[in-house]
């Protein structure tokens, strides 16, 4: 299940969807809002998504992970809206019979979500400026995001 939510992510209730007698491993990833990026102090973030396509593409990524690794259950939830430092922005949970598949599957899901799912992040800096990440059109940021 891949979901975009506008409210805080409730890990405890999501965890109950993972219970599975066949699973011997559960790997989870939490993406948190941190207080700096590329040397600049960050005060807050806004996340925005194109929800219909984000859920289509997100579920496609989960299906790919299921094909590549021997997994039981995969859950990925990404939050949108105004987030503060320390808030949970994204949660991935993968269960599998064995730990190898669970680690690899979790890594695959978060890497692909970051690269492909239509979600955007606007950073608000201590000096009052703000910026949509990866959308710079000059300087090193533009060169890096062009290659992605």
């Amino acid at each position, binding site marked *: 299940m891949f979901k975009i939510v506008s409210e805080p992510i409730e890990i405890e209730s999501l965890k109950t969807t993972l219970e599975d007698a066949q699973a011997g491993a559960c790997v989870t990833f939490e*993406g948190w809002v941190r207080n700096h990026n590329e040397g600049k102090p960050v005060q807050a973030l806004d*996340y*925005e*998504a*194109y929800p*219909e*396509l984000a859920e*289509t*593409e997100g579920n496609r990524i989960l299906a790919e992970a299921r094909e590549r690794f021997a997994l039981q259950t995969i859950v990925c939830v*990404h939050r949108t809206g105004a987030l503060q430092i320390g808030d949970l*922005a*994204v949660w991935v949970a993968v269960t599998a019979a064995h730990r190898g598949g669970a680690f690899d599957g979790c890594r695959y899901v*978060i890497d692909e*979500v*970051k*690269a*492909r*799912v*239509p*979600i*955007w*992040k*606007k950073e608000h800096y201590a000096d009052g400026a703000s910026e*949509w*990440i*990866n*959308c710079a*059109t000059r300087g090193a940021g533009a060169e890096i*995001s*062009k290659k*992605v």
Partner: protein
Amino acid sequence: MKLQIQYFALLREQRGLSDETLETTAATPTELYEELGAQYAFTLPADRVRAAVNGEFVAADAKLKTGDTVVFIPPVAGG
């Protein structure tokens, strides 16, 4: 032809709107993006933006048809 456009993130701010219906002669997403970009001074060049039509990613040179909903996808940054 008549198209629906939805805007997100940087493009929503630069257009000043979340969605609109417009008449265009643009045949492809790239032509449409160039047309809108010239009108509203979009800063991202066309080759940095992906296109989606009716909720699915499409090629930049896909043929648009009347009634389509078009979304331009700036570089993503989830996680």
